[in-house]
């Protein structure tokens, strides 16, 4: 959007990363004051969490179903369909649950955060708050950041649960795998801490990263309709890249 600065795109990207880092510290510093706006935080959890339920649950169900179908086909080649439950649960808990939920979350909740804050910036609402001695960092940004951190792991768990349900539906009810085998194999091989809880930690980190990117993009957007549009796009693009990169790093070091 700013033609004059095209040549230094890498420099710009680095500057953005640095600015986002500083923004993170500003948010963290604003969190104590934001506890006074507890209701606002609850409202944001409602907006980014509860309002994302439909898409998360639907996608979770379908991902579980297709995973079951694909893995059954693959496992059947080795006569190992008994392991279906295990493989589905492990892929969901360790990888697909956190990552797919994060990507959906960035598209559903991250964009709305950016657009909302960007529009507040463009219509001087943030300045108005500053002039009323209300810090927009603690009233607008911090509640959304906290909401992202709280809602994301919960959504990932719901996604996982629906995924398991979908896998069971396809594997047991449709393909005729034994119910006891499905669950027994799963429970014998899936560990609460290394598999399930580590996945939850991952999704918490993703929630923080997405909320940071989304609020940062909204807060620093140029106050124009084009600026808000670009900022929204950037939220999705940067969130997706950062989530996948962070996923690799966390998987390598945590799991």
């Amino acid at each position: 959007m700013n033609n004059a600065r095209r040549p230094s795109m890498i420099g710009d990207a680095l500057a953005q990363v640095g600015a986002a880092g500083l923004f993170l510290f500003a948010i963290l510093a604003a969190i104590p004051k934001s506890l006074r706006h507890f209701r606002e935080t609850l409202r944001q959890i409602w907006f980014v969490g509860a309002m994302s339920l439909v898409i998360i649950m639907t996608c979770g169900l379908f991902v579980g179903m297709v995973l079951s179908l694909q893995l059954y086909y693959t496992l059947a080649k080795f006569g190992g369909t008994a392991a279906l439950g295990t493989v589905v649960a492990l892929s969901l808990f360790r990888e697909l649950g956190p990552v797919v939920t994060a990507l959906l979350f960035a598209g559903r909740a991250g964009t709305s955060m950016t657009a909302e804050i960007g529009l507040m910036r463009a219509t001087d609402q943030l300045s108005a708050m500053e002039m009323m001695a209300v810090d927009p960092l603690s009233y607008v940004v911090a509640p959304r950041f906290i909401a992202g951190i709280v809602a994301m792991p919960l959504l990932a768990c719901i996604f996982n649960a629906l995924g398991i349900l979908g896998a069971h539906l396809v594997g047991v009810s449709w393909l005729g795998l034994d119910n006891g085998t499905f669950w027994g194999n799963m429970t014998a091989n899936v560990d609460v801490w290394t598999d399930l809880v580590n996945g939850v930690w991952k999704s918490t980190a993703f929630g923080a990263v997405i909320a940071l990117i989304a609020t940062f993009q909204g807060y620093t957007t140029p106050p124009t309709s084009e600026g808000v549009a670009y900022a929204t796009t950037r939220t999705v693009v940067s969130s997706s890249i950062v989530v996948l990169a962070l996923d690799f790093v966390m998987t390598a070091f945590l799991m």
Partner: protein
Amino acid sequence: MNETNHPNGADPATAETDAYVQIRGLHTVLNGKVIFDGIDLDIPRGKITAIMGPSGTGKTTLLRHITGQLDADAGAIRVDGRNVPDLSRNQLFDLRERIGYLFQNSALLTDFSVFENVAFPLRQHLRLPEEIVRNIVLTRLQAVGLRGAAELMPAELSGGMARRVALARAIIRDPGLMIYDEPFVGLDPIALNQVLKLIRTLNDTLGITSILVAHEFAAVRRAADHVYLIAGGKVAAQGHPDELAERDSPWTRQFFGGEADGPVPFQYPARDYAVDLGFPAGVA
């Protein structure tokens, strides 16, 4: 430009001790454009001071300097005894709690009703019982003639109504300093009169110091105790409105008499018109 009086000149209203806001040697450059080129200015306590000047001259920018929303390149801005550029974020918020600011574009919070917009500063800073909040908000809305619109959303208001709601919000906490950025724009004559009276009343009864940015000289003349005319990054003229109106200078003649030609160019600085249209220079 020679006609600029020195701020510490004869006018008793600008005596240093009395100034709520005191600006010295203000320099600002935005995007390579010089907005302020050394401005000295005093806003006397308990008075209404009008700031006038052509659009784009930096009136809003000046207000943003005073409230610490924008840093100046050089100069001292003392508000109520404290130098704004030196204040920390928290100190700035403390200062702003005592300033009411009416935005040029109203800047209502679009997710809240008119009532909640006006109640916002109260809810954020004070823990008051709901009935008291209600009473305060309704009296302020009554003062701007919009008590009946309390449950409307900002999107359902006209520009003039939104301006009045923003005014009600700005005065909700009885500030020590009120700043009005073009409060009369978009108001019908009746509402304009009401708002004008309100500004005067707030000043007379509560002794609120006021800064009034406006273009309507007739209105300014009825309300303001002192006028600063800013043009070309400097204070072009100042004085009591009546005195200014009678003073015979190209600035005042143009600005208060509405002549297009004069020291203030009507055109934003631009290339030669003919060249822009593709003709050889000087043809148009």
